[in-house]
């Protein structure tokens, strides 16, 4: 019984992940500039990768047909998920910072850009 529940929860999470991925991919193509696309990336990373990896963990814990190595599978996928939780935001922060500093990407449709203002005033290097 507990196995079936785990599998169902896992499947639901994977389905949520797949849909989030699709939406993030659409957003990645629709959004106008780099900085806005970063938000689509966040959807893709957390909703589209972290959540389904947790789903895979639960599913594989419940799936007895995978044999004794299913614990290996669960362990590897949850470690990957936690690494992803740490790494994804840092990655997008690093690339955003570099893009803004080197002016590789424009911040065009914008309400305000306090960073640019501060940089011009010399508050921040």
């Amino acid at each position, binding site marked *: 019984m507990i196995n079936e529940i785990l599998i169902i929860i896992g499947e639901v999470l994977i389905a949520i992940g797949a849909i*989030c991925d699709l939406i993030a991919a659409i957003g990645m193509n629709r*959004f106008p500039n780099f900085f806005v696309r970063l938000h689509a990336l966040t959807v893709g990373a957390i909703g589209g990768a972290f959540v389904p990896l947790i789903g895979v963990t639960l599913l594989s814990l419940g799936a007895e047909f995978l044999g004794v190595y299913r614990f290996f599978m669960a362990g590897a996928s949850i470690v990957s998920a936690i690494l992803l939780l740490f790494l994804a935001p840092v990655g997008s922060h690093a690339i955003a910072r570099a893009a*803004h500093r080197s002016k590789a990407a424009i911040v065009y449709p914008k309400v305000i*850009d306090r960073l640019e203002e501060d940089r011009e005033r010399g508050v921040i290097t």
Partner: protein
Amino acid sequence: MGRLYRAIPVSLLVFIVYIVFTGAITPYDIITGVLVSIVIGIITANIVISNPYKPFDPRRWAHTIVYTLYYFFVAEVKAHIDVIKRILSPKMPINPGIVKIPIRVNSDYAITAVANSITNTPGTVVVEIDENGKYFYVHWIDVKRIDEEGAYRSISYIFEKYASKVFD
């Protein structure tokens, strides 16, 4: 001596990661896991941890659990739904800009946790951090308030509240 104290939490972390990643508890795994955790712990202790007593405080762990639950089941879900709506609606109602919000936590880990929480919620991305004046510069998909205090209230107040309890 400080190095050894600091090595203990690091070794524990290594051991947990090792065993979880392996997914098996045969004697072979435990022996190699202990060896690996001792070696890595001693090598990297000084890089990772500055105050060895913090990781053993149970209150911090309790806050961590509460925070994790809140974060994943409330903050993330709200933010995801918000951004997904913006992506899917035909007119694409975005209102982006970079705002400046103050940092009110102290330790490196706390700042990092707040920044990661901000970035991990869709809709806000930390673009730059001013380490002297202690400001985040956050790219916000829907700028509601452009003043520092207002932005702080709507973006990072709740994260900082927990982060200061967990890490400071």
